[in-house]
Every structure is written in C-alpha cells, then in structure tokens.
C-alpha cells in the first residue's frame, strides 16, 4: 500500500493524517509537495485539511487551480483512489472532481466540536470498515462546511447512492433542519460524498484526529482500516 499526501501552501493537517495512518496501519505515507510536476507511484492520494492559500477567495479554490491538480485529475480519471478531507474536500469540489460546493457554515462561525456521522454505504474503500447505518464520533473544525448542490445534482447524488456520510445524532437520527444535529447547515445533512466510480471521496470532519483512545477515542479508525483492506487486497 502506497499513500501520498499532497501539501499545498497553507495546508496544516498533513501531520495529523500521517500520524493517523501510522497509528492505525503502521504505514507511513509520502508527502508530495504541490510544486512537484509528477506524482510518485501511489495507490491513494490524500488531500488533507488546512487553509490552502489562506482559504482566501474561496476555500480550496486556489489549490484546485494548481498544476499538480491536473496530475491528480489524471490519476483519478484512470481509476486512482483520492480522499479529500475538510480543505481537501473543498479542493475536490473546486476542481470539479466532486459535485457541489462548500459554503460558509450556517452560523457564520468556525465550528470546532465533535459530531456524529452516520455511514450511508459500507461498500466503498473508505467505509468498508463500518456497517451501513453505523454511527461514529469525529471532530470537525471548519468555517465553510455547509455542503450545497443544486436540485438536479442533489437528486442525482441521492438517486445514485453517492452520499457516504451524513451528520446525525448519537443514535443515528438525521434531521437537516436541526442545528444541533446538522451543525453547519449542509443540505440533506451531507457530510461526505463519493464519485461515480466509487474511488474519489470527500468529507468535512476529521476522523484522523480520533484514532487513539488517549486522544479521546478511536472512532475514526475504521476509515483507515477500510482503506488498508482495500489497498492491500
């Protein structure tokens, strides 16, 4: 299993991601600097969280228009696995690799708190460590996590079963209108989606920060276990 973590200027959760892979899988990912012109041979590209280019203009916009994103697009179009978390998710939508957009949180404030996610599919490389309907705890930390898609896109996502995580209560109840359950106001309480081919996934919260009981729990572990299982098959 070879994992590459791409770092744009202003990205700041790459160390968390490395640590999580090390803690859960024992595997140390390679860091890929955004100026590199060729992707090294990897099985999975991770776009971690942070504030690429300060999140100025729009979150993820400037990173999405970097030369290396063309390489990543190529990689994705050839069936490569790509995971974008938080700013990484924003970059993927800005680059058009995933549909929709992430708007400012409904509260117009940065939200750093724990939330529960309900797993909507367990047949993807990113979710096969869970069972459909499982609920897990994860920290979230973002100012712009309010997922939006127009009616047509939304219908397509729902119909094609492309929503992988939704914000929920501890018992798995989803209510997009309830701000305690859907803190950033995402449409249909969407927290993560996947591409048509099931290989490009974007999500807002940070399971990588909850993989060690010492740091408050290990609810995020199945994400990494699932990835390892897929990639080592």
């Amino acid at each position: 299993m070879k994992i590459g973590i791409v770092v744009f200027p202003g990205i700041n959760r790459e160390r968390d991601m490395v640590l999580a892979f090390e803690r859960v899988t024992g595997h140390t990912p390679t860091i890929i600097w955004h100026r590199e012109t060729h992707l090294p041979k990897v099985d999975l590209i991770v776009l971690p969280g942070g504030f690429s280019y300060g999140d100025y203009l729009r979150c993820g916009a400037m990173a999405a228009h970097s030369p290396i994103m063309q390489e990543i697009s190529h990689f994705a179009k050839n069936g490569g696995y790509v995971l974008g978390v938080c700013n990484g998710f924003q970059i993927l939508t800005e680059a058009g690799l995933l549909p929709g957009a992430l708007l400012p949180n409904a509260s117009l404030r940065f939200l750093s708190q724990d939330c529960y996610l309900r797993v909507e599919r367990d047949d993807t490389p990113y979710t096969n460590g869970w069972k459909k309907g499982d609920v897990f705890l994860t920290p979230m930390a973002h100012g712009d996590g309010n997922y939006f898609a127009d009616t047509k896109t939304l219908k397509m996502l729902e119909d094609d079963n492309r929503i992988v995580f939704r914000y929920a209560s501890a018992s798995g109840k989803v209510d997009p209108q309830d701000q305690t359950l859907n803190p950033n106001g995402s449409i249909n309480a969407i927290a993560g989606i996947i591409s048509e081919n099931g290989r490009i996934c974007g999500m807002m919260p940070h399971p990588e920060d909850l993989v060690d009981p010492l740091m408050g729990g290990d609810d995020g572990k199945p994400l990494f276990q699932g990835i390892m299982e897929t990639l080592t098959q």
Partner: protein
Amino acid sequence: MKVRLVVMLKQGVLDPQGKAINQKLHNLEFSEVQDVRVGKVIDLELTETSSEKAKQRTTEMAQKLLVNGVIENFEVEVLS
C-alpha cells in the same frame, strides 16, 4: 486599466450572510430593508490598455479561478 469584477451567489443558493445582515438591520430598525445579498468585489489593476481586451481577460480570470460557476455569477466592469 482598472477593472472591477463583482461576484454574487446565484439565485437559489442560500446566502446565510445576507440573511444574517438582513436580520440585524431589522433589529437596528432599518425596517425598509426587504432583502440583502452579499457578494465579493475584486478590483484588478491591469497593464492592459484596451478596455475590450481588459474585459475579456478578466472574464477569463473569472472563469479560470476567480468565480465558482457552481454557485456564483459575475459581472465585469471597466472602472478606468
């Protein structure tokens, strides 16, 4: 040449900022306010001297980077 790009959220895209401002203005008793929409303005200073050309290049910049067509519309205006 100075060009102004005004970027607004598309109709139908929720504008939480506009909504919050509307609410606050009402609290401050600006009751004549019916609706508020918040957008961005990006002022560009270009070496370009033809206003036609400046407009065209700014439109390219908008499409390439400055505007997210999924949620935003834009207008270009030559200021001077």
